[in-house]
């Protein structure tokens, strides 16, 4: 890879930005680069990072999934309720994954069959899944004290917290699907020009259903991690987290128009957001400013992307 190619490579830029932030934060505070804080950071980032992987696929396809926070809550509630009914925790875990995947599949079917734009279809699901979570539990949070979930939420393996492994495996698999497999190629084609994709014989509707099902599945996977961390399944969990997932994808440099972007940058985007929150906390700056800063970062990220596109 030559220098000019490196310059235009979005991964290089975003990694540099993230590294720069880490250096600045560790210079500003001796507490930033400690094992304790890094463990904390990786736990904080895990939920949003897993959601961002699914959101990245959806956004590359030219769509959006606003329902992931609610689907996460619904999946968590399914797990909590089943465990309370003395169902085997492993079975409950898979039932939760199934619930999320089903909700995502419904999103995909509504978008392709009823021809409803993704923004509206998933906005509907945002209400439906959250409402169902509340209906199922009557608004009550169930404790989850099964060793399986406590292990997922709190244990370490080789010195690293388990949620981090969920993140790594998620990104590994999603990156392979998107960059090495036919399905991923189709997602990029659909995001680039859906009409052309259809004319060239790509089964656009089928692939879209799979895209939203994948996003739903990853929301459920995030629910598994969340349940482990909270040791409970409150139906009001993860409100507005979809916006953080979308922000992570955008900050990472994945084009909101669709068709362009590298999966791993969504993880780096999530890391940058977590570092802002974590860093400002350590520096004792009010959390009110964090929201302002994250907002500014989103706009600057897209602005930089626009500058790059106009150079193209």
């Amino acid at each position, binding site marked *: 890879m030559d220098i000019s190619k490196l310059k235009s490579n979005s991964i290089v830029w975003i990694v540099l930005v993230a590294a720069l932030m880490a250096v600045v934060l560790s210079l500003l505070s001796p507490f930033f680069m400690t094992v304790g804080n890094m463990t904390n950071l990786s736990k904080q980032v895990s939920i949003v990072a897993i959601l961002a992987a699914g959101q990245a696929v959806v956004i590359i396809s030219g769509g959006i999934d606003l329902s992931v926070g609610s689907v996460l809550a619904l999946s968590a509630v399914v797990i909590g309720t089943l465990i309370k009914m003395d169902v085997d925790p492993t079975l409950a875990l898979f039932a939760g994954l199934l619930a999320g995947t089903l909700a995502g599949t419904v999103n995909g079917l509504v978008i392709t069959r009823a021809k409803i734009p993704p923004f509206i279809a998933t906005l509907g699901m945002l209400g439906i899944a959250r409402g169902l979570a509340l209906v199922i539990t009557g608004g009550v949070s169930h404790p989850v004290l099964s060793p399986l979930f406590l292990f997922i939420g709190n244990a370490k393996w080789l010195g690293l917290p388990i949620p981090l492994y969920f993140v790594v495996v998620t990104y590994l698999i999603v990156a392979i699907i998107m960059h090495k*497999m036919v399905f991923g190629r189709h997602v990029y084609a659909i995001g680039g020009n859906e009409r052309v994709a259809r004319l060239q*014989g790509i089964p656009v509707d089928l692939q879209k259903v799979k895209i939203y099902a994948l996003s739903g599945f990853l929301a459920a996977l995030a629910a598994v991690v969340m349940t482990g961390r909270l040791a409970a399944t409150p139906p009001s969990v993860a409100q507005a987290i979809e916006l953080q997932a979308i922000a992570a994808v955008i900050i990472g440099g994945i084009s909101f128009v669709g*068709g362009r972007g590298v999966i791993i940058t969504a993880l780096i985007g999530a890391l940058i957001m977590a570092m802002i929150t974590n860093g400002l906390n350590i520096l004792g700056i009010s959390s009110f400013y964090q929201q302002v800063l994250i907002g500014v970062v989103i706009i600057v990220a897209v602005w930089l992307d626009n500058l790059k596109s106009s150079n193209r």
Partner: protein
Amino acid sequence: MRVRPLFANQGEDIMPKTEPLVEMRHISRNFGGLQALTNVNLEVYPGEVLGLLGHNGAGKSTLIKILAGADTANEGAIFINGHEAHIRNPNDARAHGIETIYQELALCGNLDAPANLYMGREISKWGFLDKKAMKAETAKALSRLNIRIKSFDTEVESMSGGQRQAISIGRAVHFDTKILIMDEPTAALGMEESKMVMELTTELKKQGIGIIWISHDIYEVYNFTDRISILHGGENVVTAPTKDFTEDEIVSMIISGRPVERSAAKQEV
């Protein structure tokens, strides 16, 4: 011959004697109350360029959409190499070796040339892309047509209109294509690029591909097509060798929808 008998005597010695690649017989299509096509016939022979003419609303697009599988006829049949073909969708058409090139450059601008060439029929194993094979095949396919592009890794969006249309053509003829429908392939291109597309098309013609060429540029049609078929109000007006007429006569038939009497000037030649 199912050509209109109008100029049958003069026409037959110029007509190819071979069997037509594709025959559309008695095609009718109506959309609710609107009769778009009435009893239209069309045939294309190997190695010829057939100009399909008519002004907007004459039924050209509807007719080729039916052949390309993007629409279906209410009545009539399509024969390919003498056998009836049932074309219900674009994939059926492709399976019969019918490919279409659209005016608006049907490529995904965000993908590179091999990705576009193999879109929808990627070379893969167990769902994994074989990028190397697709790149190598693309290089071969394009060099066979003397198409040169800078790099197989650049997005086609950054290429010129001519290069992109060349990739479209490369894609269309790569998969054992017998009939190529070109719907105003030069409309979005400059003069030099149009010339390149026509040279490419001539190359395809030599390979025995039958080409349906739709264009509003009468000069282009007159100098480039072997035969013309004019539609008007969803009906055949005339189908004959292009050089049976003058440019003015062709224009007048497109506008009036009536076949002209053979002009005196032409007969003297």
